[in-house]
C-alpha cells in the first residue's frame, strides 16, 4: 500500500477518475455536422447543435458502436437497453440549456482495466460505467474586454464518459490508469487520445483518509489534459488536503482547476451553487435498444488488445515484460515490431525497434506512422547483420543513412562498399600490420595487460574502415597475441 506521509502519520489517497473521450466519428452524436479539429469558428455547426427553435436530435449509429466497442474492450457489461437523459444547466457553450447524456441507464456497465506499474506489477481497477453524451462548445474569454466569444464547433461531438471506481491509491497509479485507458482507446480506434487537442480529458476526484477510516470528502479537479498534469495535480491536491486536515480544518467539497503554470489546484471562481441538473429522459428520443447479435459481432471483430498482445509477445517472442509493454503500448508500434520480428531474431528486432528506431523517431518528433524507415527495410537490415554481411556496428551507420535517404539497406551497403570483411586472410593481414606497428603494446599485453585487447581491436577496425567482422577480429587477435 502506497501511503503519503503527513505530520500526524500516514494517509491513504483515494482517487477516482472520470475521463471524457471524444469519439472518433465523421459526424456528431445527434447531428450531421463534422467533428474535425481546428476548423474556423462555427463552421461545423448545424441548426440542431445551435439549438434553434424546433430542432431535434437523431442519433449516430457509429457513435453507439464505438461506445459498445470501448465497453467490450474494458470487459464491461453492455446494457442492451439504455436511455438518454437531459442534464439541465445554463452556460454560454451549451446552447440548448441542457446536455443530452445518460444518467440512470448508461449503455455500458461495470468493467475492469489492468494498470501496469513501473515496478512491473499490475493491478486491476474497476470501471463503474461508460455512457455517451454531447460535448459542449468552446468559450473564449480572451478575445474581448467585456465579452466572451462562443464557438459551437465542438458542441454536440460525441463523448464517452468513462468512470473508474475510486480504486486508485496514488498519483502514479492514476497516471498508469490514464496511460492504459488511452492505449486501449487508440487500439480500438474509438478515441485518438490526443490530450493536447482535448480529445481526452480527465476529471480527478481526490480524497484522503487515515488507513481503515471511512472515505474523506473529495474534491474534483476538472479538465486535466495530460498524464503528467494528472499526476502532478493529484500529488498536489492530496498534499493540500492532508495539510488542511492535519491543521485541524475540514475539506470543502468543491470543484477545482489545475493551474499547470504554478503547479497548484485552485477552486473554480464560478458561483458555488449546488448543481441541480433535473435529469429526466429526453422526450425527443426513445430508449436505445441494441441487438445482442450485433453486439456479439462487434465483440468478435475486436482487435487484440494491449494486455493480450503484451502477454503474447512475452510467450511467443520471449521478450521481457518491460520490452513487451513498451512495444505493445501502441498498436502501430506493435504491428511494426511484429513485421520486423517475423522469421527473425525477436530480441534483435526488439532492441533495434525500441532503441535505434524509437530513439530516432523521438529525435525527429515523428510517430511510427511517419517513420522514414519502413518495417520491411529494417527487417532487411537485420538480415544483413544476421547473415554476417555487415557488422552490428556498421549496421548503425547504414540505419542512419536509411533514416536520411529512405534508401534500402542492401543498396546502401553496396554503394558504400560496407560489406563486412570476413576473409580471415585479410583480417590476419590487417592484424599483422597492427601488431607490427605496436610492438610495445604487444609486449605489455603479453605481460598481463589484458585490457589492451580492446585497443588492438580498435586499431584493426580502424585499419579495415570498421568493416572487419568484430567476432573474427577478436578471435584471431587473441590467437596471434597469445603467440
Amino acid at each position, binding site marked *: 500500500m502506497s501511503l503519503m506521509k503527513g505530520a500526524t502519520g500516514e494517509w491513504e489517497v483515494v482517487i477516482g477518475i472520470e475521463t471524457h473521450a471524444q469519439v472518433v466519428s465523421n459526424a456528431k452524436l445527434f447531428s450531421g455536422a463534422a467533428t474535425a479539429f481546428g476548423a474556423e469558428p462555427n463552421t461545423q455547426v448545424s441548426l440542431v447543435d445551435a439549438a434553434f*427553435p424546433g430542432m431535434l436530435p*437523431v442519433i449516430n449509429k457509429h457513435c453507439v458502436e464505438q461506445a459498445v466497442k470501448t465497453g467490450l474492450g474494458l470487459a464491461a457489461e453492455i446494457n442492451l437497453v439504455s436511455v438518454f437523459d437531459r442534464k*439541465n444547466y445554463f*452556460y454560454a457553450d451549451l446552447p440548448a*440549456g*441542457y446536455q443530452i447524456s445518460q444518467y440512470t441507464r448508461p449503455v455500458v456497465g461495470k468493467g475492469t482495466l489492468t494498470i501496469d506499474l513501473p515496478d512491473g506489477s499490475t493491478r486491476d481497477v474497476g470501471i463503474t460505467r461508460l455512457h455517451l453524451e454531447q460535448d459542449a462548445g468552446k468559450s473564449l474569454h480572451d478575445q474581448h474586454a467585456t465579452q466572451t466569444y462562443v464557438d459551437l464547433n465542438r458542441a454536440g461531438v460525441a463523448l464517452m464518459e468513462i468512470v473508474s471506481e475510486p480504486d486508485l491509491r496514488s498519483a502514479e497509479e492514476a497516471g498508469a490508469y490514464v496511460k492504459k485507458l488511452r492505449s486501449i482507446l487508440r487500439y480500438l480506434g474509438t478515441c485518438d487520445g490526443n490530450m493536447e487537442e482535448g480529445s481526452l480529458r480527465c476529471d480527478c476526484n481526490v480524497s484522503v483518509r487515515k488507513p481503515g477510516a471511512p472515505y474523506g470528502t473529495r474534491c474534483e479537479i476538472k479538465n486535466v489534459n495530460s498524464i503528467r498534469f494528472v499526476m502532478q495535480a493529484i500529488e498536489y491536491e492530496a498534499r493540500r488536503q492532508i495539510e488542511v486536515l492535519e491543521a485541524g480544518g475540514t475539506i470543502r467539497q468543491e470543484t477545482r482547476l489545475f493551474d499547470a503554470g504554478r503547479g497548484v489546484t485552485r477552486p473554480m471562481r464560478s458561483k458555488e451553487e449546488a448543481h*441541480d441538473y433535473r435529469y*429526466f429522459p429526453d422526450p425527443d428520443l*426513445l430508449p436505445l435498444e441494441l441487438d445482442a447479435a450485433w453486439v456479439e459481432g462487434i465483440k468478435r471483430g475486436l482487435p487484440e488488445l494491449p494486455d493480450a498482445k503484451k502477454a503474447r509477445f512475452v510467450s511467443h517472442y520471449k521478450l521481457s515484460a518491460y520490452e513487451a509493454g513498451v512495444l505493445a503500448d501502441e498498436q502501430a508500434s506493435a504491428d511494426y515490431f511484429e513485421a520486423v520480428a517475423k522469421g527473425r531474431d525477436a530480441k534483435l528486432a526488439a532492441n533495434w525497434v525500441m532503441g535505434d528506431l524509437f530513439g530516432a523517431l523521438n529525435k525527429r518528433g515523428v510517430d511510427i506512422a511517419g517513420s522514414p524507415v519502413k518495417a520491411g527495410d529494417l527487417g532487411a537490415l537485420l538480415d544483413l547483420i544476421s547473415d554476417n554481411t555487415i557488422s552490428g556496428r556498421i549496421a548503425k551507420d547504414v540505419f542512419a543513412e536509411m533514416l536520411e535517404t529512405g534508401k534500402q539497406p542492401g543498396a546502401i551497403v553496396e554503394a558504400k562498399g560496407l560489406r563486412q570483411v570476413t576473409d580471415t586472410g585479410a583480417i590476419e593481414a590487417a592484424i599483422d600490420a597492427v601488431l607490427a606497428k605496436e610492438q610495445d603494446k604487444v609486449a605489455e599485453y603479453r605481460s598481463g595487460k589484458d585490457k589492451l585487447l580492446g585497443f588492438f581491436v580498435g586499431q584493426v577496425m580502424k585499419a579495415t574502415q570498421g568493416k572487419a567482422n568484430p567476432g573474427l577480429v577478436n578471435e584471431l587477435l587473441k590467437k596471434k597475441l597469445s603467440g
Partner: protein
Amino acid sequence: MSSLTELGLAEARDGLLAKKFSARELAEAHVKAVEASRSLNAYLVETPEKARAMAAASDERIARGEARPLEGLPLAIKDLFCTEGVQTTAGSKILKGFKPPYESTVTAHLWRDGAVMLGKVNMDEFAMGSSNATCAHGHVENPWRRRGDNRPLVPGGSSGGSAAAVAARAALAATGTDTGGSIRQPASFCGIVGLKPTYGRCSRWGIVAFASSLDQAGPMTRSVKDAALMLQSMAGHDPKDSTSADVPVPDFEKALTGDIRGMKIGIPREYRLDGMPAEIEALWQRGIDWIEAAGATPVEVSLTLTKYALPVYYIIAPAEASSNLARYDGVRFGMRVNGETLDDMYEATRAEGFGPEVRRRILIGTYVLSAGYYDAYYLKAQKVRALIAKDFDDAFQHCDALLTPTTPSAAFAIGDKADDPIAMYLNDVFTVTVNLAGLPGISVPAGLSGDGLPLGLQVIGRAFDEETVLRVGGVIEQAAQFKAKPQFIAGAM
C-alpha cells in the same frame, strides 16, 4: 368575390382544376379577407406578396396540367411553425424579429403540394393556454358572439388565431398544434373542424417545441373532408424527427365512406362530469343518437383515470417545457436584455421576454424535476400516464372509436378565468387524455349553445387509425348539419 372565401378546401381545389376561377383570384380574395379581419387580431404577420407569387406559380402549374394536391389553396400558418424568411415568434416577445433560416417539415409539405401562404396566425405564447389571451401580441377575438351580447369572446387556444381565421373565412384552412387540446378546443369554440393526429403522424421538426412527448401538428378546417385533404399533405415520416412514425400514410379522403354500420362507439362513463352543463350532456346524447341512426352501436366503456389526466398533464407538459424553453436565452436569436454578467443577461432577458403564464409553467416544470421532487411528481405522473394509456387500450378492446364532448362549455368572454389558472386548465379536461395516450382525435361542430355559440363533439381513435376517426367524424358532421355562421365574417357587410 367573398363567395371565394366561403368555399371549402376540397371545393376550391375542384374549382381551380375546373378553371372556374384562378389561383390569383382565390389568393386575392383571401388577401382582402385577411385585411378585413384585422379587428380579430388573428394574423400576426400578413404575407400578401408571397401569397400572390405562390398563387401565380400555382396558376402556371394548373395550366400545364401539373396541379399538386393543394395547388393554389390559401392557408394560414400558426406562428409556432418555423417558416423560412418569415417572422416566427411562437406568440412570444422573446422571439421578437426571429426569421428562421429553415422551413418546418409540415409546412414544407404544404408548399411542396402547392398551397399558398397568407400569413402567420396568432396563438397563446409558446402554445401554453386555452384562450389565446396569453399572446405577447394581444389577444384574438372569436368571430362568434353570444346572442344579444356584444362582449368579445375567446377563440380558445392555443391555436386561437388559426381557429378564428378559418371561422371568419379569412383562410380556407389553417395549421394548428395540439399538446393538450390546442387544436380541438379552439375548433369547438369557433365552430370548425380540428384534428389532432396520432403522435408521430406529423413531423415535429421545425415546430417550436413546447412539450415534446405531447405536441402534434394538425389541420383546422371548415369540414371533415378538408381535414382529410390537409392531413394527407401534412403527414409523413421524417428522418429528422426521431419520434416521427415510420408508417405509410393512407388515403384519408378515401376513408370518408360515410358508412359506420356495425362499428362500436365507446361512450366513456367518466367523461360525464359532476355539474356538466345540461346542454353539453344533451349534445352528447344527440351525437350518440346520430351514430346509432347510422348503424353503429354505442357501448359504455370505462376510462377510470380520466380525472387524473389534467394533473398528469400539468406535471409532464411544464416539465418538458421548462427544458425546451431553456434555449431562449438572448444569445443566438430573438431579444436580448443586456446584463453585467451572463447570468444577469439570462435572467433579465427571460423575465422580460416570457409572459406570466409561460413563466409560471417554466417554474412549475423546474420544480417538479428538481432534486427531491422528481420521484413524487414527474416519475409518478409518467406512471399514471402509462395507466391512462392502458385505459384506452382496454377500452379499444370493446369499441372502434370513442365519442365525447370536446369542451365542458362554449367560448367564454375575454378576461374571464384569466386570474384562475386552474379554471383555465379545466377547459382541456376532455382533450388532454388523448395527448397523454398519443391517440388521434377530431372535434366536429355539432350544435349551438343556448347563447348561440358553437359546441363540438370529439371522436377519438386507435393509434394511426385517423381513417376511422375521420369516418365517424364525417357521419357526425353529416347528421349535425351545422350551417350556422359566426357574427363576424371577413369582408362580409
